[in-house]
């Protein structure tokens, strides 16, 4: 059993399990499941200044988001440290691997390329752009669109929201540009 858990989990197990979270959170809390609101709550808790967007009772509205985020840190530790070995290679398809080799990626161990996502990588310009600009855009865009992959792509589309479909189309417009046009320039 433990060995089975240690192997990567197939999409047809992970997808439905994530999908069950949507009805569970509605049933348990009467809430729409989403993750990126936790970023807003963290800002409201630490640096609200005089910004209207951060002036609310963040604990009352956000305690559940923040508990879940803390849980995700723990789950990441369990999944990454107990149920995985650090030298595991993500089994992307050969064609995807060729695409990334063409971008200059050589180290395929771990979940993320260590050439870019390390403190050493951060000292290089590509690493800096990827980590700082990339994550800035993720945080900014998630709040601008009022939801991220969880709140829109999964919760919103499960509720058949046209607005969420539009957001997902936006995700793909941006993602295709970043992956096909921007990455070849900065890597």
């Amino acid at each position: 059993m433990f060995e089975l858990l240690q192997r990567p989990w197939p999409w047809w197990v992970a997808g439905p399990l994530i999908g069950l979270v949507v009805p569970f959170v509605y049933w348990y809390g009467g809430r729409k499941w989403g993750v990126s609101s936790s970023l807003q709550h963290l800002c409201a808790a630490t640096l609200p200044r005089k910004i209207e967007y951060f002036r609310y009772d963040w604990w009352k509205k956000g305690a559940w988001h923040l508990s879940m985020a803390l849980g995700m840190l723990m789950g990441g530790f369990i999944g990454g440290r107990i149920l995985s070995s650090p030298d595991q290679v993500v089994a992307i398809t050969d064609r995807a691997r060729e695409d990334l080799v063409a971008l200059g990626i050589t180290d395929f161990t771990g979940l993320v390329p260590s050439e870019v996502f390390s403190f050493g990588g951060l000292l290089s310009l590509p690493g800096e752009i990827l980590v700082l600009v990339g994550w800035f855009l993720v945080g900014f865009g998630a709040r601008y669109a009022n939801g991220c992959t969880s709140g829109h792509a999964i919760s919103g589309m499960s509720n058949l929201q046209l607005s969420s479909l539009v957001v997902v189309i936006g995700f793909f417009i941006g993602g295709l540009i970043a992956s096909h046009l921007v990455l070849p320039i900065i890597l």
Partner: protein
Amino acid sequence: MSVESTAEVREDVQEERKESLWVYLLLGAFLGMIFIKSEVASWFRIQEMFHFRSVHMYGIIGGAVAVGAVSLIVMKRFGVRTVRGGEIHYPGGEEKEPRRQHILGGICFGLGWGLVGACPGPLFALVGSGIPVMVVGLFGALAGAWFYGLMRPSLPH
């Protein structure tokens, strides 16, 4: 209609909620584990998705939406209430209408997602899995969210 009225920001029903935060902590741990073990948190998988080279990510998102959608249809059909008997509010009406913020915010998010290869949930899981530089990523995402709050009055919605 102002952004205040969307589900995330709404001043919610004033009823006393007796939810246990432990449940959300466990739910988060469950999700964090899935994000790592299904490789949703992997930059390699996200690049593979944007290059249309595998069914993996589409299967995960599609499978999640299929299960989520069927569950919600059943819950609405049978008028399922919350565990404490409260009525469930599903986003509807104007909240379902696409606005400029949806396409513009979506594109910004997508640009970031295509670069860093993970979304906010997996980011927390990656920090927990012990990739130190992801802490910098978390501060980057917080800076982005904060900047949105600052700029919100002057952005098109």
